[in-house]
């Protein structure tokens, strides 16, 4: 009962959110929702202990696929989005063969290199990828007109609701995966590489599975982005965005499901709203960098550790059972 009330409040808050924001903040909100899916899917990949620098390009594979399918074959957008996601997962599957021969730092840089090759291929082959200019005039979601209801997905609020529903569904699946036996195996692969292997777990197969699943969801986020902005080019998916995803995850913390979301929301609000409102032009990256370093130094376990501490303190005050054990 209490749980369902909390859920209702959450849904109501999400529904009301865009109406509390200014127009440009609504635009930022849409991209933020898409980025949340990106960073949460990234976390699934990191559960197995490998950090990739190719996630954003995989997202781009989803984006390019979905865009090309609608642009060249006139495919219905939601269908192309699903195919884009599948394509991203498939490319990840192919990449997993060379990449999972490596570990740690080698994997990090190997994933970067293979992603960069894909990106350069988009640049080099003007047909069909559009070359350095990329693709433009990509169809958005078709308008919906049923009687008095008129939904135009150009409007940030309308697209926001669509994105929230899609992203919430994806997050729910990701959450179920993590809570399932599969998720536990991912954790096991990370912490007890040798042990998991000894107990008959094919480590590489599970790493591949995590990589492919994460990439599929990254593909969804890419497709969501492309049909909102209507244009993509190879630079949309360059290492700069990858670096942002990495910092969202680490600043937020990756121990919990909500950590990366916290990081993504906090840093986006800081960079796109707070620093812009304060009128920093050229100093914006500087302050962002300082905040990033400070947060990693003083909150090494991410923003999520603040939440944990907050919850523990709250439980301690209300005398919740077991509060003492939870405090680190």
């Amino acid at each position: 009962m209490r749980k369902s009330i909390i859920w209702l409040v959450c849904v109501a808050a999400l529904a009301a959110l865009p109406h509390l924001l200014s127009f440009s903040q609504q635009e930022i909100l849409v991209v933020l929702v898409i980025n949340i899916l990106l960073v949460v899917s990234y976390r699934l990949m990191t559960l197995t202990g490998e950090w990739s620098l190719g996630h954003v390009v995989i997202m781009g594979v989803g984006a390019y696929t979905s865009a090309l399918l609608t642009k060249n074959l006139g495919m219905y957008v939601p269908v192309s989005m699903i195919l884009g996601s599948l394509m991203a997962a498939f490319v990840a599957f192919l990449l997993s063969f060379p990449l999972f021969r490596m570990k740690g730092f080698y994997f990090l840089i190997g994933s970067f290199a293979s992603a960069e090759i894909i990106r350069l291929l988009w640049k080099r082959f003007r047909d069909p990828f559009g070359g350095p200019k990329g693709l433009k005039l990509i169809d958005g979601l078709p308008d919906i007109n049923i009687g008095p209801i008129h939904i135009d997905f150009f409007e940030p609020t309308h697209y926001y609701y669509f994105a929230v529903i899609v992203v919430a569904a994806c997050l729910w699946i990701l959450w179920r995966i993590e809570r399932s036996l599969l998720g536990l195996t991912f954790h096991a692969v990370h912490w007890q590489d040798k042990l998991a292997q000894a107990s008959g777990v094919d480590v590489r197969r599970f790493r591949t599975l995590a990589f492919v699943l994460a990439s599929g969801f990254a593909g969804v986020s890419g497709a969501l982005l492309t049909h909102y902005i209507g244009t993509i080019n190879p630079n949309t998916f360059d290492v700069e965005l990858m670096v942002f995803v990495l910092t969202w995850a680490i600043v937020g913390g990756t121990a919990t499901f909500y950590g990366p979301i916290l990081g993504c929301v906090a840093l986006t609000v800081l960079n796109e709203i707070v620093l812009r409102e304060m009128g920093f032009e050229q100093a914006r990256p500087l302050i962002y960098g300082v905040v990033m370093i400070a947060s990693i130094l003083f909150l090494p376990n991410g923003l999520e550790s603040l939440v944990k501490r907050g919850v523990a303190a709250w439980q301690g005050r209300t005398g919740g059972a077991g509060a003492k054990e939870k405090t680190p």
Partner: protein
Amino acid sequence: MLELLVQTGLNALYSASYISLVAVGLVLIFGVMGIVNFAHGELFMVGAYVVVALYSQNEVPFVLTVAIGLIFVGCIGLLMERTMFRPLRDNPLGGLVASIGFLMILQALASMTFGVRMAFVPPVTQDVIEFTDKIRLPVQRLYVIIAAFGFLTALWLFLTRTRFGWALRASAQDPEAASLQGISITQTARIAMFIGAGLAGVAGALTAPLISVNPHMGHSVIIAAFIVVIVGGVGSLEGAVVASAAYAIVHTFVTTFYDGVLADITGLLLMLIVLIIKPTGLFGTADRA
């Protein structure tokens, strides 16, 4: 055709020189501290701006400027070690993110101090050694090649002939064993950071008159350096030098005979192929990854 090949070889030699200076520093930092220093390209950039500030704007002699570049950027390395990498010693991903934050700070500082447009560095000399009409080596490039040889030799002597160097190599191979041997990790980290950053700074200072100095110039250098580090094998200084030469040759020849974009793709493919055949790089060992 022969002339074209020789000239391209000279181009590759120059390119290998400055890339190896950057890559060796990156390897040293990773080897000793286990941290991927994403800001390494920006240290290169700061080295170039030292030349802009002193040599271009205040007419300090170039050689002196390069020395100052080495020390100044080395000190930035010390600052990074003290403020970020030491507190984050047990958190390599944290170190990575902190270095990204530092990169943004350096870029922003450079564009706020020197403007977003490229900075001007007058040539040190315009002399050119003409072997034939088509085979020419500008003396400025020769300086970079000589300096790279000099610094790399000095580094090699330092690492093989001195106690500090021995300690450094020991910690690069196995930090835990080294600390059991009574080698101070803090001390070796400091030296590695100073040398690693200083080499990037000196590469930036030396090449500043030859390339376009702007706040974002570090980006393309770091990508080449990463490729080189991987191909050579993480933690292997010899590997970094050999791989710099290999990468420079491949990249230069493909650019000359095909085109620049294809050269980038080839460089990356080369790296993937090495990784697939030998997942620890040419000179790397299995346990440092």
